[in-house]
C-alpha cells in the first residue's frame, strides 16, 4: 500500500507548495489535505495516514496543539510542524512533542531531511 501523507494548513497556497515538494521527493506517496486541525482529526477518524505535516499558525487549534494531541494517540507517527515562526520556544515545543521542525518557506531542500528520515523509519525491516 502506498505511503500516505496528510498536509494540514489553512492556506491553500501553502498546501500546494508542500504538496509539490512532497511530490518531487516521493512521487509515489498519496497526498491528502486538510485546512484545519479539526478537519484533520475528522479525517484521521475514518482513515489512517503514515506521515503528517502541520502548519503552526492556524485558526482554531494551532499546529503545536494538534501535534501534541496526535502524539498522545499515535506515539510512533512521524509528524512535522511547518512554520515561519522560527522562535526558539516554538522549535523547543515541537521537539518536546517529538515532532520535526520545518521552517517556512517550504521547498524541496527544506523538506527533504524530514522526509528522508521518514522513509528510513517506514522501510520494512528486511
Amino acid at each position: 500500500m502506498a505511503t500516505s501523507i496528510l498536509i494540514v494548513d489553512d492556506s491553500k497556497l501553502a498546501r500546494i507548495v508542500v504538496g509539490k515538494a512532497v511530490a518531487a521527493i516521493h512521487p509515489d506517496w498519496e497526498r491528502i489535505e486538510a485546512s484545519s486541525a479539526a478537519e484533520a482529526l475528522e479525517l484521521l477518524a475514518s482513515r489512517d495516514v503514515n506521515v503528517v505535516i502541520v502548519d503552526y499558525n492556524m485558526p482554531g487549534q494551532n499546529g503545536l496543539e494538534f501535534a501534541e494531541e496526535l502524539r498522545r494517540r499515535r506515539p510512533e507517527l512521524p509528524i512535522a510542524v511547518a512554520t515561519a515562526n522560527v522562535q526558539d520556544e516554538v522549535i523547543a515545543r515541537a521537539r518536546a512533542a517529538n515532532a520535526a521542525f520545518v521552517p517556512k518557506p517550504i521547498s524541496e531542500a527544506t523538506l527533504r531531511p524530514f522526509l528522508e528520515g521518514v522513509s528510513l523509519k517506514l522501510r520494512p525491516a528486511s
Partner: protein
Amino acid sequence: MNAPSVVLDDLERDAMTELVNIGVSRAAASLRTMVGQQVMLSVPSLEVVSRATAAVLVREREPDSLVVVRQDFTGAFYGQALLIFPETNSLELVRAVTGGLLSADEAAGMEDEALAETANVVLSNCLATLANMLERPLEMSLPQVMRGEAARLFDVSPSLAADAVVLFLYINFAIDDRNIRGYIAMLLDLPSLEALRSLIRSFISRIVGEGVPPP
C-alpha cells in the same frame, strides 16, 4: 529623522536598526525563496511619530490605493507588523509566489489568501528572528489583508487614538525583475518601548560582553 533620540540614545538606536536589519533580511530571504528572484532592501528608517503622521509618511510616498497585510504581536513589547505594497502590484506578487504552481486564472482566484500566506511567512520570519535575538517570546496573530488608503489602514484599532505616538520602522523592498515594490513596516506602541529599550540594552550587553553605561 524625527528625533527617536527622545526615547532611544544613539547606541540603542544603532542596535535597534541592526536588529531590524537582521530580522528583515531574514524576511527578505524567505520572500526571495518564494518568488525565486532577488529582493533588494533599503536601510531601515526609525521614526517616533503619531499613527496619523506615520500614515502621512506612507501616503506622501504612496498616494494610490495600498494593500496592507497586518499581523499583531504581543509579548514583552507589542505592536503590528505590516507588509505594504501598492494595490497595482498585488496580482503580480501573487503571480510571482505561485509561478509554476498555478495558472494565471487560478492565481487570481486566490489572491487574498496567497497574499496572507506570503505576508505571514515574511513577517513571522522577521518577528521570530527579533524575538530570538532579544530572548523574549512573541505571540503573533493570524494575518489580515486590508485594502485602501494609508490613513485608513494605519488606524488599526478604534481604541488607539490617532495622536498616540508609536515607533514606526520601515524598509523598502523591491523585486526589480518583477516590478514589485513595497514596505516591511512595524508599529510599536510607545508604552511598550520602555520594555523594548531594556531588552535592547541587554542585547547590547550580550554582544559587547560587559555592562553598558546608563544613557
